[in-house]
């Protein structure tokens, strides 16, 4: 089942980044190193047929591109506020598309407001435990040599079509 969730998470993240911000990514296998200190991160919680959270750590270069592409401006032209906003909204869209892909379209979830996590230690903690529990699945994406990792937490049950 974990493999199935992982596949759905990976597919939804890749499709969302592409459709939302023209960012092309490919899933990577293996554990790999995560450089928490140099990353940006955001989390979003959800509640419904099951509750949990989604955390994404991502290279700043990817976030610059995310914000610039969403706004239709050059990479150097975005502010930190816009970068944070773009990261949060991307999390919101990934989470909103992920849950029905797992449970089917009848289930009703409430998605919380995405939050930015700052500081290497806090980011590391957020990726390790959510409500005292380890991630249910983790997906690593390669974006032009830059890193993006998603951690899904919760008692995830596949019930969808």
């Amino acid at each position, binding site marked *: 089942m974990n493999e199935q969730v992982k596949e759905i998470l990976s597919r939804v993240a890749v499709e969302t980044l592409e459709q939302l911000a023209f960012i092309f990514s490919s899933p990577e296998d293996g554990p790999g190193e995560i450089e928490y200190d140099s990353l940006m991160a955001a989390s979003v919680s959800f509640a419904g047929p099951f509750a949990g959270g989604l955390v994404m750590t991502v290279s700043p270069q990817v976030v610059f591109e995310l914000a610039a592409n969403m706004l*239709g401006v050059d990479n150097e032209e975005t502010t930190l506020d816009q970068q944070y906003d773009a990261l949060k909204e991307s999390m919101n869209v990934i989470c*909103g598309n992920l849950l029905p892909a797992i449970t089917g379209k009848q289930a*009703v979830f409430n998605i919380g407001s995405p939050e930015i996590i700052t500081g290497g230690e806090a980011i590391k903690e957020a990726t390790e435990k959510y409500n005292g529990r380890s991630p249910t699945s983790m997906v690593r994406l390669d974006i032009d040599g830059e890193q993006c990792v998603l951690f899904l937490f919760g008692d995830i049950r596949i019930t969808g079509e």
Partner: protein
Amino acid sequence: MAINILIVDDSSVMRAMILKTMRMSGLPIGETYQAANGQEGLDALEQHWIDLAIVDINMPVMNGEEMIDRMQENPDTKDIPIVVISTEGSETRIERLQGKGASFIQKPFTPEIIRDTIMAITGIGESDE
């Protein structure tokens, strides 16, 4: 005839993206107004003439569904066309919003979907042939 548009979304980047997409699609846009939650959206509706409201669902302070309910309770705003642009994926909720007369577009969207939905709900472009 240019239409005045109100865009309500808690993400300023998303608001800019929706506006950019609408401009690109060649819709005749008049004045545009922005609000970061349902309450600010209702305030903007009181202050300005709005022909079309674009409304997100997940927002702090007042969510989009409550804003739509309030718009429908008010004779001044109940006939304003509404397009919900949201990550909402639950058919149960989408049908409830459509039952309130709103059109629905799921994020992420394409420029074509925005253009076609707005043309259909406002009737713009129908008499151009």
